[in-house]
């Protein structure tokens, strides 16, 4: 034993015991695993939530110097200093915060006057700033030297070219709207329009041009027509390259000197550094989304393979949970050991999942599921685990090796990824072994329990009372899945979708996935999310403030709130000020209004500086600065800017000035400003309304858009709902009472509740048998049936006429035969054969037909007279009735079948002519073979026909008393018989001139049929145990049905309790005995491809390769016996005593789906073509598409309500089906279904 093998065995043993443990104590182990996961994820709580919000850090202005680019050499308190505070910032932002008002305000002023003259002062201010220069000992320093020089705008921003500075200082002011040209401003008739012309029409999330130039949120600017405060605010924003404290302080002091702000409380002691995270743009999002799509496709294709379990979705979920929680665990563990993740989690996550993979989980499931079902759950789990242990370990070792190689690339990013992947792999293995295995064991145990609960007794083939079957049938779909563990009906929907018409398929898809509803829901949620997010007073500000508070030193930036005591009305909530510092207008408005009360006609407006003006840039969108810099192709991602304390500037303008700058057109356009005294009362009465009106132009459009969107969304929902109701009138998912079923109630339907079109075809009903029909055989032209009493009838498979009746011999002298006879005539489908017609027509026909075919009808004349007497005096012909009837039947057939068939047969078998003649000549039935003496009829009284076969026009019947008879199908004459053995013949095969009969005692007799219709017996004793029970032998003889193979290598198959045996037909030589079934064989199938299928009493199906005798696959198919088995080129179709028809993939042995049959119809199935399956039901037959498992059509046969179950279905070559409904046969042509398919 090599080392590998030793290792392998040890691993396998360890896994085995581990599996036993897991399956024995599932609940404690799951709890333990859950605790482990939680414990490992605990460190994650300390991690900050990922987000793209900016982070702040503030330093005092006093002795500020830019941080050195080197991390190590930094002095100071490292704990307070964030990692990113390294090197010089991208820019220093200096804002000059201007508040201007016209004072005193006169009543006859226009609304535009509020902002026109204050805005006009910006040009002067900008000029002052631009021309400011510091003169000191080192020379003259102008703004040009310290400011941030910007270059071209990005090529896509041509339209902003005139508005944003290029090739110079980054200096932004509202004056940029007019290219910093006062003349343009004065000539501008409509300021508001100019300002808003670049506002986006729709919703926006990033900073707009107005925000950029004003330097503060639009609603604070006061540039609108409803400004009651009459204070206009704007900023002049200055980007600085270097920090020159002396220059800046000189600028500050000069501006303060020029425009003093006496009551200003702005703090000027700290610089705030804002660090921006890496942004995810759409360009980056596309690859990310692609990877996620690939990831989901991977997960989908993986979990789709989970099969043969109780709850597919449950296990798929468990698999995904395993992978995800192992990732979380790995992150948590890495954090615990001090490895903080620096990689972008969202980006590497798909790759991690792909590396860790779902494969092991699937392999485990498959391995466990493929263990024998009859084992105990514990053992199954253990066995499955240990089967796969080696491959799991090997895979894991390989992956670890690959990752190890990756680790030695020495690239930090890859190393980090590898580290995570290693921890993830190990934790994934841990979870697989403990969590998933246990979940699997629980699942399998549930399945077993469900089996036990629903298990039918093995002999439950007797049909229950009608209502019971009805109810069972009614809830068929729901009941199937729990009842039979293997009945995972029609798993992948892709199997099924192709068959329905396209229109229906689309609708079903919509209905099934509720796609429309979900899309609308998702759309609405996104819509609301966007609304909430973009609402200026809403979530965004809240988030920004939260981010600010979260930042370590952000608190320092927020000064204590100076509450203007006494001024505030009592009802004004203070909390608004602390959390939402976004409502300053109301506050100031109150102040203003109170002042206004004292003032009279001429209102004196005073500019106030409050807490709300503190660091006004905070109220800007957090994308304000990044978007500003991005216009110049400067990224702020992973970099920071330093914002210097703003310089307050207060401007008072006298009314004269305001009147001077007024544009001539404005006087006409605008009415005088709303009188403050008139509006005051209403303003105080409805403060909410006023404030909402104050929000102005932008917000009104926003709400309009929101309302419009909501309305249209609701309308869309309603519309789609109506469409949905219109298109899908059925109640999906409610398989209950409301389902519109037909009067027969129980249409089989598929998962969607789709009831296929049902049609009523009037079948040819072949009546005549008194008892239940037991055997059926056909060769396409003729159909032979035999009932319990032993009467054999030959029917024309095309027209459904009864050609011949071969009675049970006992009936010969039975008076009831008359009745039988009568019946047969009465029910003859062809009216021509009625008593009256045939009376005369037979004469004519006979004369017409007799001359051209003299040799055939050489001895007919006396017969016709007999027939005549028969027809006229029915009661008296009791003695000769059977014989005559047979002849009559034959005569009748010859009457309109034009006897081409008959003629050919006669030519072929001229040797039999003598015998026929003799038998016809005799009164009694004497057409027996010369070799066999005429048996006494007494011995046949108890005999019934157990098996039938048909070839050409010869019927071979095997009787229960061991007698083998060969009948002429057309004439109803016995050609030969053999009764050497007394053991009943249970199965027959008739091929070429060989007849193989399987007997009850287990022997297999080979006969050869000479042209003179004698049977030469070549008995071959198969080495079977003599005491084979009857039920085992019935119908276990199959053969090759294709003449092509027969000519080359005919083989024959029989079976015994120990496995199928394969014989060669030519020389009766036993080729193989196929070992593998644990019970007796109950069904076999063989075809041209030399694949043999056998089903046994144990419910198992084996596929064998007949050429080599090796087992190809082995499936556990049914509870109870496999009753019939057939194959198409791609599928194996089996039915069992459990009334389930299962369809298997032939090559892989995987179950595709199964069909629950009605009670008693379990074995009635037939394959019409390669993709059309027909199954029998209660008075109906259903057609299925084999490939996709779709129910195509259900055909009700006859209108009677007392329909019998279809016990047997025989498919004829010409697309006809013969169904055995008790004592009746139905001959159905299904051209419509076939047309659709082929």
């Amino acid at each position, binding site marked *: 034993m090599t080392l590998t093998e030793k290792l392998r065995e040890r691993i396998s043993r360890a896994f085995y015991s581990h599996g036993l443990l897991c399956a024995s104590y599932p609940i404690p182990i799951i709890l333990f695993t859950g605790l482990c996961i939680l414990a490992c994820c605990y460190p994650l709580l300390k991690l900050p939530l990922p987000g793209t919000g900016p982070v702040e850090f503030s330093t005092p202005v006093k002795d500020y110097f830019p941080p050195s680019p080197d991390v190590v050499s930094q002095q100071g308190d490292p704990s307070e200093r964030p990692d990113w505070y390294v090197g010089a910032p991208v820019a220093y932002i200096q804002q000059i915060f201007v508040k201007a008002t016209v004072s005193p305000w006169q009543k006859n002023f226009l609304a535009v006057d509020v902002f026109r003259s204050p805005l006009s002062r910006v040009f002067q201010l900008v000029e002052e700033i631009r021309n400011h220069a510091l003169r000191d000992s080192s020379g003259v320093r102008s703004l040009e030297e310290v400011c941030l020089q910007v270059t071209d705008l990005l090529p896509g921003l041509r339209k902003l070219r005139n508005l944003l500075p290029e090739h110079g200082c980054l200096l932004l002011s509202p004056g940029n709207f007019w290219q910093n040209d006062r003349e343009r401003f004065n000539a501008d008739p409509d300021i508001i329009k100019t300002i808003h012309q670049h506002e986006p029409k729709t919703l926006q999330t990033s900073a707009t041009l107005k925000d950029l130039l004003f330097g503060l949120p639009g609603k604070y600017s006061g540039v609108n027509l409803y400004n009651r405060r009459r204070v206009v605010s704007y900023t002049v924003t200055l980007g600085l390259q270097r920090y020159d404290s002396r220059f800046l302080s000189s600028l500050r002091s000069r501006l303060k000197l020029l425009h003093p702000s006496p009551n200003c409380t702005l703090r000027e002691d700290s610089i705030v550094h804002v660090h921006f995270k890496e942004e995810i743009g759409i360009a980056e999002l596309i690859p990310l989304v692609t*990877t996620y799509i690939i990831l989901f496709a991977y997960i989908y294709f993986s979990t789709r393979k989970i099969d043969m379990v109780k709850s597919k979705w449950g296990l798929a979920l468990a698999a995904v949970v395993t992978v995800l929680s192992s990732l979380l665990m790995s992150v948590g563990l890495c954090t615990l050991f001090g490895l903080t993740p620096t990689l972008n989690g969202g980006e590497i996550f798909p*790759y991690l999942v792909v590396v860790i993979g779902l494969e092991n989980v699937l392999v485990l499931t498959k391995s466990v599921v493929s263990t024998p079902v009859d084992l105990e759950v514990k053992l199954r789990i253990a066995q499955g685990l240990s089967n796969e242990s080696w491959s799991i370990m090997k895979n894991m070792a390989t992956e670890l090796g690959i990752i190890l190689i990756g680790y030695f690339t020495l690239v930090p990013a890859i190393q980090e990824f590898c580290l995570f992947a290693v921890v993830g792999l190990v934790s994934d293995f841990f979870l697989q072994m403990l969590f998933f295995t246990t979940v699997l064991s629980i699942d399998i145990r549930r399945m077993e329990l469900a089996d036990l609960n629903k298990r039918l007794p093995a002999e439950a083939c007797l049909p229950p009372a009608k209502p019971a079957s009805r109810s069972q049938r009614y809830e068929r779909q729901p009941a199937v899945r729990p009842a039979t563990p293997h009945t995972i009906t029609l798993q992948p929907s892709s199997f099924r979708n192709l068959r329905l018409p396209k229109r229906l398929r689309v609708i079903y898809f919509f209905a099934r996935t509720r796609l429309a509803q979900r899309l609308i829901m998702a759309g609405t949620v996104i819509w609301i999310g966007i609304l909430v997010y973009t609402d200026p007073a809403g979530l965004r500000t809240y988030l920004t403030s939260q981010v600010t508070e979260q930042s370590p030193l952000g608190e320092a930036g927020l000064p204590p709130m100076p509450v203007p005591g006494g001024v505030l009305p009592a009802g004004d909530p203070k909390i608004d000020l602390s959390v939402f510092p976004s409502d300053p207008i109301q506050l100031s408005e109150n102040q203003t209004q109170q002042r206004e009360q004292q003032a009279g006609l001429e209102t004196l407006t005073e500019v106030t500086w409050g807490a709300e003006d503190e660091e006004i840039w905070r109220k800007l969108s957090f994308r304000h600065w990044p978007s500003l810099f991005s216009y110049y192709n400067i990224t702020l991602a992973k970099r920071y800017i330093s914002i210097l304390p703003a310089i307050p500037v207060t401007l008072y303008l006298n009314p004269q000035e305001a009147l001077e700058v007024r544009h001539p057109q404005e006087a006409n356009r605008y009415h005088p400003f709303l009188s403050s005294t008139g509006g005051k009362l209403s303003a105080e009465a409805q403060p909410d309304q006023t404030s909402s009106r104050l929000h102005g132009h932008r917000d009104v459009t926003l709400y309009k858009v929101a309302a419009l969107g909501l309305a249209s969304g609701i309308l869309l929902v309603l519309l789609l709902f109506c469409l949905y109701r219109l298109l899908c009138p059925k109640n999906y998912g409610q398989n209950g009472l409301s389902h519109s079923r037909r009067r027969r109630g129980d249409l089989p339907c598929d998962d969607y509740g789709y009831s296929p079109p049902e049609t009523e075809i009037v079948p040819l009903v072949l009546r005549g048998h008194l008892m239940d029909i037991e055997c059926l055989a056909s060769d396409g032209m003729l159909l032979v049936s035999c009932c319990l009493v032993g009467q054999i009838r030959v029917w024309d498979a095309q027209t459904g006429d009864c050609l011949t009746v071969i009675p049970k011999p006992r009936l010969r002298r039975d008076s009831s035969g008359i009745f039988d006879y009568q019946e047969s005539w009465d029910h003859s489908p062809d009216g021509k054969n009625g008593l009256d017609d045939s009376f005369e027509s037979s004469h004519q026909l006979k004369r017409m037909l007799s001359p051209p075919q003299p040799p055939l009808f050489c001895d007919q004349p006396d017969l016709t007279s007999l027939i005549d007497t028969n027809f006229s005096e029915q009661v008296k012909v009791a003695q000769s009735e059977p014989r005559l009837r047979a002849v009559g039947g034959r005569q009748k057939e010859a009457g309109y079948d034009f006897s081409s068939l008959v003629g050919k047969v006669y030519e072929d078998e001229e040797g039999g002519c003598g015998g026929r003649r003799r038998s016809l000549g005799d009164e009694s039935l004497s057409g027996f073979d010369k070799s066999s003496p005429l048996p006494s009829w007494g011995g046949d009284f108890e005999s019934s026909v157990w098996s039938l076969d048909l070839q050409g026009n010869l019927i071979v019947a095997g009787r229960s008393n061991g007698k083998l008879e060969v009948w002429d199908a057309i004439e109803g004459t016995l050609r030969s018989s053999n009764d050497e053995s007394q053991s009943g013949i249970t199965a027959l095969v008739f091929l070429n001139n060989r007849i193989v009969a399987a007997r009850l005692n287990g022997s297999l007799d080979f006969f050869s049929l000479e042209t003179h219709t004698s049977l030469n017996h070549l008995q071959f004793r198969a080495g079977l145990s003599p005491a084979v029970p009857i039920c085992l032998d019935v119908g276990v003889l199959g053969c090759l049905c294709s003449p092509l193979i027969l000519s080359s290598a005919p083989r024959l198959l029989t079976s015994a309790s120990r496995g199928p045996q394969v014989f060669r037909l030519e020389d009766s030589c036993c080729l193989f005995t196929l070992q593998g079934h644990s019970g007796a064989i109950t069904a076999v199938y063989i075809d041209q491809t030399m694949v043999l299928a056998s089903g046994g009493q144990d419910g198992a199906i084996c596929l064998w390769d007949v050429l080599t005798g090796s087992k190809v696959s082995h499936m556990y198919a049914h509870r109870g016996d496999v009753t019939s088995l057939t194959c198409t080129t791609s599928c194996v179709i089996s039915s069992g005593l459990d009334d389930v028809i299962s369809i298997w993939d032939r090559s892989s042995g995987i179950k595709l789906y199964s069909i629950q049959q009605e009670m008693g119809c379990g074995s009635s199935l037939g394959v019409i073509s390669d993709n059309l399956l027909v199954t029998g039901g209660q008075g109906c037959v259903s057609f299925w598409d084999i490939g996709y498992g779709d129910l195509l059509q259900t055909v009700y046969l006859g209108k009677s309500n007392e329909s019998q179950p279809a016990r047997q279905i025989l498919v004829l070559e010409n697309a006809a089906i013969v169904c055995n409904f008790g004592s009746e046969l139905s001959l159905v042509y299904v051209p419509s279904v076939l047309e659709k398919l082929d």
Partner: protein
Amino acid sequence: MAENDAKPTLPKKSGPYISSVTSHGMNLVIRGIVLFFIGVFLALVLNLLQIQRNVTLFPPDVITSIFSSAWWVPPCCGTASAVIGLLYPCMDRHLGEPHKFKREWSSVMRCVAVFVGINHASAKVDFANNIQLSLTLAALSIGLWWTFDRSRSGFGLGVGIAFLATLVSQLLVYNGVYQYTSPDFLYVRSWLPCIFFAGGITMGNIGRQLAMVSVEGGLTAF
């Protein structure tokens, strides 16, 4: 279990829809088209990844940046991937050794994900020097082959494709037909063969899976 010892599957006969699809020429064309579009899509996405590294950080317009390279590059990639994807199963058939290793869609998806990941790494991770980049990418590519292909013919074809494609792209660049956006020329040259190799393996994997699916008559499985 049963799958492993099953005989090689017989060509399934299937419904009219599929059988029309599986007629040989038609099938080939459909496969080619699918592969072509996959190739175009991957080319665009990966191009975007490279753009992020090399060109503007704030592309004024996403659409223009997607199509920023020459217009004929994505169709060329699509055609190449169609050829490769058809070549692999064809070669398998001629060599008489059908590719049996991990023939599942989930594995193919995994392969595509790893391929995108390799591209992602080459675009996003900063390497110390180009040799390191080359070595890392080569190791990753070989790992890709070992994990998802493991056939000698696949390896050979992949190497051939990588060599040929690199040669063609270099010739194009030398003749001035095409230019890299990156000023760092060596950088591009160091990852190009590895990316081509990995791409060849990936497209071959997809092509083989598509071929198998259509042989089994189950475009449904797609």
